[in-house]
């Protein structure tokens, strides 16, 4: 069997396995865990559009998750608008906000952008936490919003976890597809070029700042959709959980550890790291509070020092080695030029 055939077979098995997961994992508790894993992977993939390609570091992306969640929920509660439509509305609002923030800050050096996104993210959290009513809309401040139980498709609510699973799976596939497709057309080339050598890109006709803003808009739109999904999944959310620095930083770090600017990196980061965090939080938090964050910090530093392109680099090499081993391939040593 050739390496390519084995590779194809493994990929097909993976895809089939993922798409039929609910059939062989029937426990709703486990399914919920996987749903949240894919949710993180979706968010990191969306984040990657700015953080990976535009080459800057957005550290306030949780604000857009919040915008998505609050917009669709508030519209549903006040106007009876289906959360599906509210989701799109939230996305558009998030994109507009992201573009407004992006226009002045994406022209600047990376540090300014990182700090502005941080400040904006925190600002949104503080604002929402302290606002009970925004005009006619009830935001409920720190207590968050509870969504009344009313199961139906138009209400984006399901009794079983299975529909949620497929929805987030499809969202993740779409996000990955959008990322992949963009990389093959002009915007992808321009973003890559602008991120690596902005001066050269500019001399080749690329308005680097403008393309970064476009990437920001797309990213914020997609991120906001995750907010609505979360709201509909949990039927309850509050500012401390969805907004604020902790989540923003977590998203950024997971993507960086997995490997920014690549297709698989953010997904790998999410799938590897979230379980570690959850595991250590469940088992250690009573004895040693905050241990999981210490582990997190250490992993972060180690990866940055020794694998700055992210864990996807050694993992792909390992996968390649594995394929060769399994198919008995003899590979010549790579000649270093």
């Amino acid at each position, binding site marked *: 069997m050739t390496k390519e055939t084995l590779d194809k077979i493994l990929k097909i098995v993976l895809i089939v396995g993922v798409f039929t997961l609910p059939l062989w994992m029937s426990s709703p508790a486990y399914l919920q865990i996987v749903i949240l894993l894919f949710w993180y992977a979706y968010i990191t993939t969306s984040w990657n559009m700015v953080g990976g390609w535009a080459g800057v570091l957005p550290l306030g992306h949780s604000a857009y998750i919040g915008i998505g969640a609050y917009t669709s929920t508030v519209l549903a509660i006040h106007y009876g608008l289906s959360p599906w439509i509210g989701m799109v509305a939230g996305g558009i609002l998030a994109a507009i906000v992201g573009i407004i923030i992006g226009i002045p800050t994406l022209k600047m050096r990376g540090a300014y952008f990182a700090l502005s996104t941080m400040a904006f993210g925190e600002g949104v959290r503080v604002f929402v936490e302290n606002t009970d009513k925004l005009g006619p809309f009830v935001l409920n401040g720190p207590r968050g919003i509870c969504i009344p139980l009313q199961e139906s498709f138009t209400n984006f609510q399901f009794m079983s976890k299975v529909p949620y699973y497929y929805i987030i799976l499809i969202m993740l596939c779409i996000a990955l597809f959008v990322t992949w497709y963009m990389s093959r057309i002009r915007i992808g080339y321009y973003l890559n070029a602008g991120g690596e050598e902005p001066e*050269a890109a500019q001399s080749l006709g690329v*308005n680097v700042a403008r393309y970064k803003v476009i990437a920001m808009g797309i990213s914020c739109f997609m991120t906001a959709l995750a907010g609505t999904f979360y709201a509909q999944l949990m039927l309850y959310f509050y500012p401390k959980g969805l907004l604020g620095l902790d989540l923003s930083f977590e998203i950024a770090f997971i993507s960086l550890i997995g490997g920014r600017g690549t297709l698989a990196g953010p997904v790998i980061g999410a799938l590897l790291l979230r379980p570690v965090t959850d595991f250590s939080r469940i088992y250690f938090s009573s004895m040693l509070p905050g241990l999981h964050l210490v582990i997190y910090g250490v992993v972060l530093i180690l990866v940055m020092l020794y694998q700055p392109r992210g864990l996807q680099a050694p993992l792909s090499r390992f996968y390649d080695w594995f394929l060769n081993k399994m198919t008995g391939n003899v590979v010549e040593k790579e000649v270093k*030029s």
Partner: protein
Amino acid sequence: MAELEIKNVSKHFGGLKAVDQFDLSIEKNQIFGLIGPNGAGKSTLFNCVAGVYAPTYGQVSFRGDEITGMKPWDICKKRIARTFQLVKPFKMKTVLYNTMVGAYIRSTNPAEVRDMALDVLERLKLADEKDTLAKNLTIADRKRLELARAMATDPEMLLLDECMAGLRPNEVDEVLEIIRGIRDGGVTIFVIEHIMRAIMSVSDRIAVIHFGKKIAEGTPEEVSTNDKVIKAYLGESYVAT
């Protein structure tokens, strides 16, 4: 009408006059050279034309249209391309990818752009390296890639900033041949260079810049025998009386 007109351009950095009341006219399809001692202001003048700097005073126009202070990407859209003295390849991408970035200004169709890029690489004799990562190229090939990338935008005018620095003599000859070929294809070329035999042999006209001011202009012969130029480069004692 001149292809490129530089009218009374000055660029001041605080108190430093990097370019001082510079006038220049370049005709279509000329190869126009710019020489001068180190720090004379050559790259600064280039950057004023290419949009990296906006001149403090003066105007630049291309085919009658004013381009003073336009941004680099808009300048490229006006069919003016440039290379950088310190080459800036997209290191983590292949030669083909690098070139395609340039070609994307002409079309948005990926297949078309790929063909355009391959075409340019053929003409510049880089086609064999199309799948090599830019960071693994030799310095000579990197310079050629810089040129290929700029040519992929299909410019009418090309600004070359010391594209032969650090090359061996035979590599310099290859580049000179390429430059002549580009001119034969209808492109006007404005070139900064330090390697005297190179720029003297390839230019139609040469201007000399010293402390930001133009001190001479003419054919290569006229310039090389010009007293002021000799004084600027070699010092007073070398001026033949």
